């Protein structure tokens, strides 16, 4: 009997306050988990300032490729553009991730065998990343 009462007292002390609020879990956890810091800003925020790029991108095949898919997480930059400057990605490495030919990629997706297509020349040399179909530069053989 005494043990049981003691147990109830200890239990009241140790069980977290918000436990059981919404279900069999600590209610405060929901708030904690939803307030973690964000690392990717989201394309809407980028487009808020960089609408010139948006115009170029929307006219080509990369219209629905979001900014951070290539430029990486930019929440810090969006918060303080002066303090945090994003590094320009290296097209010699970046583009191959999507466009290097692979038998498992969907047939209609533009893919090349980079060794045959450009023999190691950086993609930026001939293609504008934001709109790869626009004004291709001089082609190297």
């Amino acid at each position: 009997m005494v043990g049981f009462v003691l147990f109830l007292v200890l239990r009241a002390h140790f069980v977290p306050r918000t436990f059981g609020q919404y279900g069999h879990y600590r209610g405060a956890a929901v708030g904690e988990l939803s307030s973690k810091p964000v690392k990717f800003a989201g394309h809407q925020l980028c487009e808020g300032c960089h609408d010139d790029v948006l115009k170029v991108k929307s006219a080509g095949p990369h219209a629905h490729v979001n900014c951070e898919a290539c430029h990486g997480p930019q929440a810090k930059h969006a918060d303080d553009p002066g303090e945090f400057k994003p590094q320009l990605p290296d097209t010699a490495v970046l583009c191959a991730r999507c466009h290097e030919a692979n038998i498992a990629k969907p047939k209609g997706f533009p893919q090349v065998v980079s060794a045959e297509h450009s023999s190691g020349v950086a993609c930026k040399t001939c293609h504008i990343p934001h709109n790869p179909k626009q004004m291709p530069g001089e082609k190297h053989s």
Partner: protein
Amino acid sequence: MITRRHFIYLLPAAAVAWDFVLAGTPEAAPNYTQTDHWWGMLIDISKCIGCGNCVRACSTENDVPEGYFRTWVERYHVDDWHMESPKVDSPKGGKEGFPPSSYTGGKNFFVPKMCNHCADSPCTQVCPVGATFETRDGVVLVDDTYCLGCRYCIQACPYGCRFLHPKKHTAEKCSLCYHRITKGLTTACCENCPTGARQLVDLKNPKDPAIEFLKTHSVQVLKPHLATGAKVLYNGLDGSVR
């Protein structure tokens, strides 16, 4: 597309929301009512190019430890109709993309995998203390200040999406970027998917663009015979996918 006029209205709201977003205070997000939403994800196999952007983005956004995966991509090779013995690989979960395939024929495709945020989740059923749970908006989360690290949930998940965090020694898995979706953003993986193969869907919102897609296409879930109520819906999922 956002024009300059829209922008003038949006900017103050964005600024306010942004302050909150970066503040990280432990309160529930403002203007977000859990019961208004029922989250799921739509994955279109016909669009996945196996670039691994989603895996990298998730890893960055959620500080996922090296060698463990909250989401990953698998590459399948199926010889014609041999559905029961596909050849599958997932080098580093697809985090660095995929090397050229050694196969020249048959059916080949990529399958992104993640937590299915099951409506009848077997992992929350077995948690002995209530450290993992289903929120009222349909997201399965882990309370890492309460988890004992018994790993029962990891054993109970049929999809292999859980792991034990090597530093925190608690269970961890995809949280559907709960800290993003409660603020009107999309998940890190969807944000960074270049082809739109991954799309967050609010199954309670009739205006969600993915709802129309779901109404007009045949979609499947993984391991339907286990009746987990999985909410990651695949378009074009081949019968050989495990």
